[in-house]
């Protein structure tokens, strides 16, 4: 029953083996993706060179969703099976997911300027991304709002699951709201006409972002384990202090 102590140790060993491979894969995929995206693919006949922003924007948006699913999944495992690593994984995933969401929003905004002539348009996808960012921030804030980290991870795990259930409802309502208020004449980013030239760098970048996520996830979990050890030390000191 003392898996709280045993499991991170086994995990750290495994992480030591995997981490260099993941780091290598990230660099290779990212290099290839950037080469194909920036040099080896043609500019769009309509959007010109700005289309290349899509190679960052679209994978970021995918990762934003993927990370939130991973977050909710880890939280479910943490709540149901009380697996300590799931807690750490959830805690470590949230800021990465928030960063991808933010990146998707920023690139969307940059892309919007030449396309729509303004930095921000209440486009359905961008708006959903914005709400997703709020969900991430709420999770992170709640996670850090307690003196006892265990309380924080349990509370925020429940919130993440509630948020996960709500994501489709929010998505649906935002789409509804958007069609009411704006004619859908604007050019949709990453629309249906995806060309093979575009698809290759897009998939490469998506793969690179995924391995990057795993890489940072490993680093962050190791940090959390180390922080846990430090807290355990301090706790031990406080306890021995009691007895004098």
């Amino acid at each position, binding site marked *: 029953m003392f898996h*709280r102590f045993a499991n991170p140790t086994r995990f750290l060993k495994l992480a030591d083996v995997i981490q260099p491979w993941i780091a290598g894969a990230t660099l290779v995929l990212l290099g290839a993706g950037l080469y194909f995206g920036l040099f080896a693919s043609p500019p769009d006949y309509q959007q010109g060179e700005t289309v290349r922003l899509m190679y960052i924007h679209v994978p970021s948006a995918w990762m934003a969703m993927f990370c939130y699913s991973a977050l909710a999944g880890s939280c479910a495992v943490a709540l149901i099976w009380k697996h300590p690593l799931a807690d750490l994984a959830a805690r470590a995933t949230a800021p990465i997911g928030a960063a991808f969401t933010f990146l998707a929003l920023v690139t969307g905004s940059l892309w919007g300027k030449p396309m729509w002539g303004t930095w921000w348009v209440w486009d359905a996808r961008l708006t959903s991304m914005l709400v997703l960012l709020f969900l991430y921030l709420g999770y992170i804030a709640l996670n850090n709002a307690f003196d*006892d980290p265990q309380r924080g991870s349990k509370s925020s795990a429940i919130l993440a699951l509630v948020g996960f259930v709500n994501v489709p409802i929010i998505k649906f309502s935002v789409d509804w709201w958007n069609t009411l208020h704006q004619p859908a004449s604007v050019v949709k980013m990453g629309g249906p006409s995806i060309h093979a030239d575009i698809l290759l760098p897009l998939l490469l970048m998506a793969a690179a972002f995924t391995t990057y996520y795993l890489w940072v996830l490993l680093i962050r979990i190791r940090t959390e384990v180390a922080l846990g*050890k430090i807290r*355990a030390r301090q706790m031990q000191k406080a306890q021995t202090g009691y007895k004098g």
Partner: protein
Amino acid sequence: MVKFTGTDLVCYRGERTVFQGLTFGLGGGEAVMLRGANGSGKSSLLRLMAGLGRPLSGVIGWQGQSIADDPEAHNARLHYIGHHDPVKPVLTVAENLGFWAALRSPKEDTNAVMAALERLGIGHLAGVPGRFLSAGQKRRVNLARVLASSADLWLLDEPQTALDKAAEHSFFDAIAEHRSNGGMVVMSSHADKNLADAMEIDLGKFQQEARSGGAATGTKQEVQA
């Protein structure tokens, strides 16, 4: 006959093992005094017994069945006194107690509440709003809540806090009566005053084991890391 049991309990709170390997058994009319320094887990154990928390491992059972299987049935047979005295400032003492008594048995009349208040010497406070009570009076109201409706198991976390000698005496009388009717009591206390022929659990012992155990795993982890 042993009714209320705990088997090989491990309590883990605030990122530390508070106690481990704790086992107890209580039969009708029996009482347990919990002893131990601050932070040794007296309150934590009482909360586990009440079902407010779950042990990391081990089982707390009632007549062989885990209390986690049917928490509401367990709630129905216990009274709990914690660190706070939940007395609402805008409700009178009688309204405060009437609410809690009604939750337990819908047919309970107000006489039981009045009798409990009289027994602890605060019958005259029945119509007074909670905001005018002193700390000692609030504690007595809270204890009267326990007397106002029946339950087999009393879990008392330092019930004497803020009580004067007279009130303490009448409450101990009530405990003795409860036990003579086959009731059970688990009580933590810093005071020397003991319940008559009560068992004793010194949580310090289980903590000692836990601490060396924790340290051992800690070093092992460091070696491997």
